[in-house]
């Protein structure tokens, strides 16, 4: 099962994760001024929160990481020249 944690000491309380999450997984603790995981069952593992968090405070475990095995690096390198 998917697990998600926020490293409490790292969180800066910017609320970016609350804004970006499409399924309202977080709540904001007004007392501590930090984000908290509220509904981990709702997490679709889009990893937008992880990408946006300026403190790299959010970690996911046991989630599906998108498959990349079919990427042709040589082709991509060749294409880069034209972009």
């Amino acid at each position, binding site marked *: 099962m998917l697990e998600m944690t926020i490293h409490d000491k790292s969180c800066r309380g910017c609320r970016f994760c609350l804004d970006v999450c*499409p399924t309202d997984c977080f709540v904001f603790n007004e007392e501590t001024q930090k984000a908290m995981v509220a509904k981990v069952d709702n997490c*679709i593992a889009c*990893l937008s929160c992880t990408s946006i968090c300026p403190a790299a405070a959010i970690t996911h475990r046991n989630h599906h990481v998108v498959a990349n*095995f*079919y*990427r042709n690096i040589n082709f*991509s390198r060749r294409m880069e020249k*034209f*972009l």
Partner: protein
Amino acid sequence: MADAEIIKKRRTLQETMNFLAALSAGIEPILGRGANSMTMSAGRNLGRKFSAHAKTTDDLLEALNEVKRVLIENNCLWGFEPFKPAGQAELVTINAQGSRQILLVFRDCMIRQALFRFGHPQMGSLCNMMYGFFAGSLETIMTKKATLEIKHAGENACLKLLTIES
């Protein structure tokens, strides 16, 4: 089909997708909304073609399984699964217009990989192709109009809302 053969086919498809991503990023500023119509139409034709021999049904979940089967049969890596948010009673809901709706999470996606490889933004004309594919495929399987709205385009998964018009 042997694994090596499937990987080779997917690689070719990914190459094509990378190329399409570059093309669509180039035409979007020139064609504007017209680029979306073009990719939507291409996706719809592909959806119709792939689903031509699929089993027809009016059951939404059964139809989605059929779309999944059609994609696998054609070596396309577009994994999706239904999503039920906490607190929502049923997987399939009915909107104010009486149309059936279901949230879908897309994980492995050739389009996303292609866009990220070259730093193109998501939710552009190429993502719209997937809307077209679902519209074409479900039009054939359910004989009803369908829309696929992107609710969220993430780095590792996207959330979309499928609506089957009543």
